């Protein structure tokens, strides 16, 4: 193995224990491409076809009850949250986040992403079944 001499590289190789770095890029690309599709669907379905662009309360609830729409919105929520939070992490890396602070922030971001997804799904559920 080409050994590294500088301390900075050894810190970099600690990434080894995390999911292989290729996964991070693949996840970003897959979520990104999915978003292109899902967001287009969302924008057209939620705003474009509606005159005035915004639905009233009753229309929203009726629309969310449709299982296909529910699924699309849920998947959109997951993809946008993962893609967005991963992006924020990349930006923080470039601002010099390193060492222990970086691992803590990565942990916090992961929790934030999970919380966002759960809240979104709960909101969808409440609208669809308790609206």
């Amino acid at each position, binding site marked *: 193995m080409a050994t590294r001499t500088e301390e900075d590289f050894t810190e970099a190789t600690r990434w080894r224990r995390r999911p292989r770095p290729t996964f991070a890029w693949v996840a970003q*690309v897959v979520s*990104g491409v999915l978003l292109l599709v899902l967001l287009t669907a969302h924008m057209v379905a939620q705003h474009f076809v509606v005159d005035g662009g915004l639905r*009233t309360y009753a229309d929203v609830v009726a629309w969310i009850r449709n299982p296909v729409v529910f699924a699309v919105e849920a998947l959109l929520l997951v993809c946008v949250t993962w893609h*967005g939070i991963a992006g924020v992490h990349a930006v923080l890396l470039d601002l*010099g986040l390193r060492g222990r602070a970086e691992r803590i922030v990565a942990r916090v971001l992961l929790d934030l992403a999970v919380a966002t997804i759960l809240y979104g799904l709960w*909101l969808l559920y*409440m*609208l669809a079944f308790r609206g």
Partner: protein
Amino acid sequence: MMRAGLRRGDGRRLVPRWLDPHGRHLGTWAFVANRLTGLGLVVYLYLHLVILSTLLRGPEAWDGLVELFRRPVFLAFDVLLIVGLAFHGFNGLRVALVGSGLLVDRRKGLLVAAGILVGLVTLVAAVRIVG
């Protein structure tokens, strides 16, 4: 070719590392724009969730809010959101392709294509929103 024990200093002026605007090329501006739009969209994600939460407070609150958002200032904001979304999307697609080693020699063309698509989408959306 230097002696050990150098004075650690950075030849930069007082500008954060990746923001020095002097002598930069198109690619760097696409990168900066991609990053700014990305951060903007993450902020909007949480703003959007907050707004959608008013749906839980029943029809009056939500329909009142919808009326508010029909005001021109919010419509203008929507157009801005579309521009950011379109740019991040199409530029992101370019980055996904080229960044995975595909169409690497046509990256300049892809950037131009992304720019055109962003223009088109913004035009269509603006007409739809303002119209």
